[in-house]
């Protein structure tokens, strides 16, 4: 049975090298964000402060994922994956920095004084007790197959519920990038040989449990008014997390020839 030793920063992969590929010629967004969002002025001061806090925390999270993408880029390179796949990860490093900027700019629009600075969240690399090559594969699967796919499902829910022009603009930009990031993982899985798939198989359930815990730990009760501005309710967020597993990730793993019986049983267990 594989062992996840908890989360710590890996000493063997460097998350600090900057990206050499950017999207949109270095612009922050493909389309200009709305200069004015009149729906923000209709919010109470308390709601504006609360939304500012959530948007700042999302900025912090995206900044940290940029570091994770540098680890993924390095892992793909060390595994000898082809340049088009490595380049997608390379560009994702910059994408995530753009996302951090987008959430930060948005937070300042919600802020009553136009200020607000996201906290720095240090890099976060899971440690798997396995040989290096297996660990590199697990990094890619954890980040791109699991995390980016769930992020896309979650952002899809956020976008579906959003009404504020600023939130809609930001969510559209970010979702289209995250879909690309998820594709890195599924492209990687599709390229794995049968023996490498067999190496990965026993890790899937423990990794998905860790993935589940990480996402559900971030569930919050929020006022109904937040959904229009990109922060859905606990119930809608929870639905998105479950849907990402049941309707996207697990069917995808089945398509890729992995056995998902234990995962299905775990998902059906209400005590998970």
């Amino acid at each position, binding site marked *: 049975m594989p062992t996840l030793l908890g989360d710590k920063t890996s000493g063997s992969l460097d998350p600090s090298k900057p990206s050499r590929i950017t999207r949109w010629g270095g612009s922050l967004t493909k389309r200009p964000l709305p200069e004015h969002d009149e729906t923000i002025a209709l919010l109470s001061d308390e709601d504006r402060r609360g939304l500012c806090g959530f948007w700042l925390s999302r900025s912090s999270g995206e900044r940290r994922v940029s570091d994770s993408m540098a680890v993924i880029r390095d892992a793909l390179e060390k595994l000898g994956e082809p340049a088009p796949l490595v380049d997608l990860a390379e560009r994702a490093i910059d994408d995530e920095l753009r996302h951090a900027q987008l959430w930060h700019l948005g937070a300042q629009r919600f802020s009553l004084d136009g200020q607000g600075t996201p906290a720095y969240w240090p890099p976060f690399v899971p440690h798997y007790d396995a040989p290096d090559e297996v660990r590199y594969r697990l990094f890619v699967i954890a980040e791109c197959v699991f995390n980016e796919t769930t992020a*896309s499902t979650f952002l899809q829910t956020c976008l579906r519920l959003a009404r504020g022009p600023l939130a809609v603009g930001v969510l559209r930009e970010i979702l289209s990038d995250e*879909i690309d990031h998820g594709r890195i993982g599924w*492209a990687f899985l*599709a390229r*794995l040989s049968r023996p490498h798939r067999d190496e990965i198989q026993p890790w899937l359930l423990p990794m998905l449990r860790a993935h589940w815990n990480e996402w559900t730990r971030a569930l919050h009760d929020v006022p109904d008014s937040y959904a229009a501005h990109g922060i859905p309710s606990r119930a809608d967020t929870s639905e998105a997390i479950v849907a990402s597993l049941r309707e*996207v990730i697990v069917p995808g793993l089945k*398509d890729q020839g992995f056995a998902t019986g234990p995962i299905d049983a775990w998902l059906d267990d209400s005590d998970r």
Partner: protein
Amino acid sequence: MKVDRRGLFRAIVGTGAAFGLALGGCGANNNDSNDAAAGSGGTSGSGGAGSGGANAGSGGAGAQDAKVVMDTFRGWATGVPCKA
């Protein structure tokens, strides 16, 4: 609230897998990369991303095919096709 998860599956899993196979993948049940690229690409990309899968499969391995697959479906999230 209705959200199109099936469309998201095709956009991420179908197109991503087709991209991997276009780069010379092994496929779910095959260790021969050429056979798998021809055979499994269409399956992975069936449905909305079907033509992407078929492209990747019938076109065989190659970065250009992969780029076509990705460009075709990159705009799915916003409904507006776009180029990187």
